[in-house]
């Protein structure tokens, strides 16, 4: 009895195992058919690397690349960025400033529609911006509204008000923006996704943007979501928007942002032809990707900037003594050696505080010799500082251990400083990025620390004002210099190429004070399948997705 039951069980198990295998084979072939697609039309759909968005896909709520890259393709703002970092009007017909660049009047082009058919009006922008600035809505991008009059110093609507007083709808197709300070390159900002328009259908009766909208946003951009849209944990699929009237008309049949846990897995998929574009090469492949015959490789200087910030509140880093010590530390760092040995040339040694991809950038900022390795000069400056006050203690550089290469470069840098200056220098690890940022933002950190900046829009001023301006939002080292502030304000009020000279002067001030020590520009690296064409990085280190073909 018992035996027969077990025999039966075994039989069932065998059948189950058999059918599992069969199902596996069946599943395989079905699936292959599906992904191969029905010939011509699907061939032009480009699959690109993505990560599951961390926030609902709402322009003012999304501040990370997983959601930002799809949003950039689903929405069009007042201006659009060209591949070289210059801007062209997109939804805006004109953006005109008054005499001192404090009041900007925006006129919209006719005929722009959201993909639900509703028109893009002045209200579509103003209402979305008011929504983003209102702290009750918990939008992570609210500081983007900070330059506008009627917000406080972090971009919230002023206390007790639901709307930003500097935003006025003039008529259906025009509105005005009043700024707190003159800002001649204000329109450069307006292509960033936080400034995108949102249709009326996004809001519920109480005026909140709905969860349904965050799951399937309706935009006015070059692409719109396909029927399947954002499949959580899987991908975001989009197809060309037939009503799109702007300058980034899709040249392919659609985009699929496939989600990955790691860039390693994505790299393997590019090698085997399952993924068309990976816009960041994993550290494990950095030494080999340029010679890998299975992929097309891209590697050029990009727009993110790395530095080490030394707060003035640290002992020995104030005043004239501090200036000498900062210069000495900067000159003890052999940047080319680190970028080559540790980053395999995926970084480019810095020669200023901005990025080479920007309009107006030059490697001839007066005073930037302090960024060159010079052991003798470094020793001399350190000795001079010792004459003012004797150095004691330890120089530590804090880094977060969850970022690739951070540990290695911090150790190398500490070693170089130690060897050149003969002082006790060491890296100091924080396990995660948010732990490091917590001690940085609450100012309890007692050491120097690594910092980085990825600009929001292609302007040199965006690399300077928000980080080194007195009291600025990202001024982690609490740096303050009246001359610098004055030059930045002056540059912001100056139109045309004249401002670049003033920006150079402002950078010279920074190079003397060194509130942060510039290290390198992060290169933009990417691999694509060998049959992918028209890949080019834009200023954001991203491909221009609309132009990709194969």
């Amino acid at each position, binding site marked *: 009895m018992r035996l027969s039951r077990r025999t039966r069980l075994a039989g069932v198990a065998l059948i189950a195992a058999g059918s599992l295998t069969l199902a596996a084979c069946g*599943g395989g072939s079905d699936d292959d058919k599906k992904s191969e697609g029905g010939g011509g039309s699907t061939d032009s759909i480009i699959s690109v690397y993505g990560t599951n968005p961390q*926030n609902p896909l709402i322009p003012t709520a999304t501040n990370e690349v997983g959601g930002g890259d799809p949003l950039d393709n689903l929405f069009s703002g007042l201006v659009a960025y060209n591949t070289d970092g210059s801007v062209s009007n997109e939804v805006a017909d004109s953006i005109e400033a008054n005499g001192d660049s404090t009041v900007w009047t925006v006129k919209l082009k006719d005929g722009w529609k959201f993909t639900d058919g509703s028109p893009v009006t002045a209200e579509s922008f103003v209402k979305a911006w008011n929504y983003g600035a209102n702290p009750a809505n918990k939008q992570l991008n609210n500081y983007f509204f900070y330059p506008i009059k009627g917000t406080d110093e*972090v971009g919230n609507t002023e206390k007790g008000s639901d709307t930003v007083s500097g935003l006025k709808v003039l008529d259906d197709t025009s509105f005005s923006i009043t700024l707190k300070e003159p800002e001649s390159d204000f329109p450069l900002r307006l292509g960033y996704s936080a400034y995108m328009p949102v249709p009326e259908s996004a809001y519920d009766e109480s005026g909140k943007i709905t969860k349904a909208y965050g799951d399937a946003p309706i935009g006015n951009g070059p692409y719109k979501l396909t029927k399947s849209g954002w499949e959580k944990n899987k991908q975001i699929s989009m197809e060309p928007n037939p009503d799109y009237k702007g300058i980034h008309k899709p040249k392919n049949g659609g985009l699929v942002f496939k989600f990955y846990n790691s860039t390693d897995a994505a790299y393997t998929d590019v*090698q085997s032809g*399952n993924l068309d574009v990976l816009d960041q090469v994993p550290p494990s492949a950095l030494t080999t990707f340029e010679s890998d015959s299975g992929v097309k490789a891209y590697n050029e200087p990009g727009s993110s900037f790395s530095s080490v910030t030394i707060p003035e509140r640290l002992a020995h880093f104030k005043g004239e003594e501090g200036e000498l010590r900062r210069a000495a530390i900067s000159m003890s760092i052999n940047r080319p050696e680190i970028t080559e040995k540790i980053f395999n040339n995926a970084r480019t040694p810095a020669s200023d505080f901005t990025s080479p991809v920007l309009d107006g950038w030059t490697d001839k900022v007066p005073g930037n010799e302090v960024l060159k390795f010079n052991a003798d000069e470094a020793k001399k400056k350190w000795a001079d500082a010792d004459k003012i006050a004797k150095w004691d203690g330890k120089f530590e550089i804090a880094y977060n251990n969850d970022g690739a290469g951070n540990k290695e470069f911090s150790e190398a840098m500490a070693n170089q400083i130690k060897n050149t200056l003969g002082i006790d220098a060491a890296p100091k690890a924080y396990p995660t990025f948010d732990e490091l940022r917590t001690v940085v933002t609450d100012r309890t950190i007692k050491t120097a620390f690594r910092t980085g900046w990825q600009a929001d829009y292609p302007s040199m001023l965006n690399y300077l004002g928000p980080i080194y301006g007195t009291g600025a939002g990202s001024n982690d080292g609490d740096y303050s210099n009246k001359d610098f502030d004055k030059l930045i304000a002056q540059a912001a009020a100056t139109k045309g190429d004249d401002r670049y000279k003033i920006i150079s002067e402002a950078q010279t001030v920074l190079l003397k004070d060194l509130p942060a020590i510039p290290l390198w520009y992060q290169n933009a690296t990417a691999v694509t399948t060998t049959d992918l064409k028209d890949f080019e990085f834009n200023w954001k280190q991203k491909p221009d997705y609309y132009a990709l073909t194969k």
Partner: protein
Amino acid sequence: MWWYVAKRLLQTIPVFLGATLIIYALVFLRPGDPINSLIGNKPISDEVRQAIRDQYHLNDFFLVQWLYFLKDVLTFNPDFVGLDGQPVFEKIRNALPVTATLALMALAMDAVIGIVVGTIAGLRRNGWFDSVTLVISLILLSVPIFVVGFVLQFLFGVKFGFFPPTVGGDWTISKLLLPAFVLAIANIATTTRLTRTSVANNLTADHVRTARAKGLPEGAVIRNHVLRNSLVPVVTYIGINLGSLMAGAIITEGIFNVQGIGNLAFQAVNRGDAPVTVTVVAVMVMIYVFMSLIVDLLYAVLDPRIRYV
């Protein structure tokens, strides 16, 4: 037996409460502010930061946070969201099936290959098959899973193209074959060796000698008297493994880009996302508890002397 099952099920309640409370305490003790990883290098206004902290009760003591968590979980609150604003239950519903399938496939491979090879090796112990098995299982045990994973992925996925190198969001059983095998590898070695030793021991047992002496055919002796007794420790090992396979899938899921529960847990821990971390771990603990219950019940089937009353 049913009373035994009910008792065991009742025991899951304190296990659930205790496990989630401990994890809440751990997440609470973790330094750093999860809001900082949400916003990156950019500034955020205190009002917005405060509003988000209030929404997730981050300012409360962890016991209070834990009570809020219990309320959300026990009522299956569909608005119970992680720090990223996505519903937690939806995340788990999306991620659990693929990991469960992966773990079950690994378990099946482990059981079938391990028991068959182990039995053969045990029956012919000290023969060439046994020796070869011993060497191979030692190698499998000592090579880290990510080495095996990357090598097999490169060979069979990229080089020869037998399998898709990664799984991705639209998984199928055929896509999971290679990762399941990688996941099963270390366990197969252990199962083989366990079965082999157990079979070898039982071969010399008195009851087996008796069975042979009374003239039972060799096949029946092996099936009814050797294998059956040998499987008790093996079943324990395999059963408990399902729990650890689900948890240990993190590495395999990373290599093969499986959007499963391991990946979800890894990212949630990295972000300091307490709601997601705690729920995922609670799910894993529960699976572990239920698997060990099933294992215990299987003993009774294998060995009639074991009775649960």
